[in-house]
């Protein structure tokens, strides 16, 4: 058998043009900015980068950002899938309005979302006032950050899972039931594997979005060093000091951690796709 050519010819014309446009755009909007960040880091030097990152305050911020982003993405994974399921499978009044409202976190400027959430959950806000009575403060604590991250990440899971659920015919569940499977067995062994790849994609997107989120979190976080200071704020602080190198170093650290996490999620995804048969 001869080796397959590097680019497979197809009957569809326009490969050269479309690939050219794609690579050009990708270079312009993705590769160049990330390249500039790496270049900045390369000029700064590995030991300097490490010295910048290896401080209590930076570790605290990174740990806070990634931990809360992960928890928010987990929360969104569960509730995003349930929301998508409800929107596809049930008919109830107001369904279309709720369906449209899911996209609002995409459309709303994040600062608006942050201010609105703060106004609601501050100790003198409508909901914050209630929780305050039981001694549970939300705004200006880690709970507030978590809430903002859930808000910005929710549509990712719902919108990636929704089309997949639409594809699943109710016959599949019925067939499973006639073959003697219980409800929970059908859910675990028939439905869940089919949803898994899309749900993981949504999870990864939600996580990635939360890690980089600045606009909405900054209003509700409190921003106290070591306690409620997120990593993107540290980058902004370094920029305010005209310290581009240190800002780049923290940016690189976030990039590296995010990349590792996304790679790991992709590996799980490949594994789960293989397991259910269609790669």
């Amino acid at each position, binding site marked *: 058998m001869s080796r397959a050519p590097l680019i497979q010819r197809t009957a569809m014309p326009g490969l050269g043009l479309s690939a050219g446009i794609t690579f050009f755009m990708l270079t312009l909007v993705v590769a160049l900015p990330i390249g500039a960040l790496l270049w900045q880091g390369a000029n700064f030097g590995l030991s300097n980068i490490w010295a910048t990152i290896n*401080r*209590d*305050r930076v570790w605290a911020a990174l740990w806070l950002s990634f931990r809360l982003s992960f928890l928010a993405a987990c929360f969104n994974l569960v509730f995003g899938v349930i929301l998508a399921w409800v929107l596809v499978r049930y008919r109830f009044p107001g369904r279309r309005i709720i369906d449209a409202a899911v996209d609002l976190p995409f459309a709303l400027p994040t600062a608006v979302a942050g*201010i609105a959430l*703060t*106004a609601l959950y*501050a*100790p*003198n*806000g409508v909901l914050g006032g209630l929780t305050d009575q039981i001694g549970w403060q939300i*705004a*200006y604590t880690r709970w507030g950050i978590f809430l903002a991250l859930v808000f910005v990440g929710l549509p990712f899971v719902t919108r990636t899972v929704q089309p997949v659920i639409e594809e699943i015919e109710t016959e599949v569940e019925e067939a499973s039931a006639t073959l003697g499977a219980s409800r929970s067995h059908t859910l675990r062994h028939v439905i869940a594997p089919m949803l898994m790849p899309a749900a993981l994609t949504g999870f990864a997107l939600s996580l990635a979005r939360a890690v980089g989120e600045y606009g909405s979190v*900054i*209003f509700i976080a*409190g*921003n*106290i*060093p*070591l306690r409620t200071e997120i990593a993107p*704020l540290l980058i*902004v*602080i*370094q*920029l*305010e*000091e*005209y*310290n581009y190198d*240190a800002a780049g170093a923290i940016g690189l650290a976030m990039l590296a951690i995010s990349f590792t996490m996304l790679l790991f999620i992709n590996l799980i995804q490949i594994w789960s796709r293989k397991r259910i048969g269609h790669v």
Partner: protein
Amino acid sequence: MTLFRLIPLACLTLASAAQAQTTLLNVSYDPTRELYREVNEAFAAHWAEQGHEAPGIETSHGGSGAQARSVIDGLAAQVVTLALASDIDQIATTGKLPTDWQSKLPHNSSPYTSTIVFLVRDTNPKGIADWGDLTAEGVEVITPNPKTSGGARWNYLAAWAWAEANDRDPAEFVGQLFANVPVLDTGARGATTTFAQRGIGDVLLAWENEAYLALAELGEDQFDIVVPSLSILAEPPVALVEGNIADDAQRELATAYLDYLYTPEGQALAFKHYYRAWDASAADPEDVARFPDLDLVGIDDLGGWAKLQPEHFGDGGIFDQIYVAP
């Protein structure tokens, strides 16, 4: 004509329309919105009166440091009016304006000054009278983060100056003060919102003009202004950015714009917007009389920005050490 031809044409038309008049971009900081809105109008009228064509003046507002970075990165501002001399110094390091820019205009290039005062809840329930009361147990202080807000650097330095004058260890004092801060907003307006709208904290450290503005907009029955025994003389300076001047007409306009700030009319507007200006001859006497007397410490008495900026607010500086031991 196809859409593809129309778009460049539209761009060209817009560009040429903009070039017909002399334009000016003033890059300023956050709390000056109201001031420059009025200054721009008054100056445009004044400029037209002298037989010039009506100028196109635009003002952009934002955090002082972020605004300075935009100019460094290429925003073509002919005039900068920022919160801190050190931000303009930073622009000067790129060569866009001479390093001795601050000596070009009177009063350290500061046509108006301000100071830092306290805004407290109505009737002052915690009995806050001076800086020393801010470190008491149970008092919550709201101030933005000095790392991200120019105004907050004045807050911090005012506290420092008071501690020095009262024989307290200044580093320890500001440490105790910031231990009482439950929320560190990134900008002055954000801190005002946290204090006034969210009801967090007992006292807000604010620009004097912001404090008066908050009183005027949010109701005098909700807050009181407390003037401490000593505060800092905050000089928000202005400068002409040589490197961004396109031609002589623009230079003339920009120079006249900055000079206008020093005229009795310009000064009257500054007084009106709660800034302490220098020349009260054309100002409404009521606008001038509302400023209480207090001891004001100048930035040079503390050592000047070139020394203070890295020492206090640099990476690992005294402010950072409040939160993380070196």
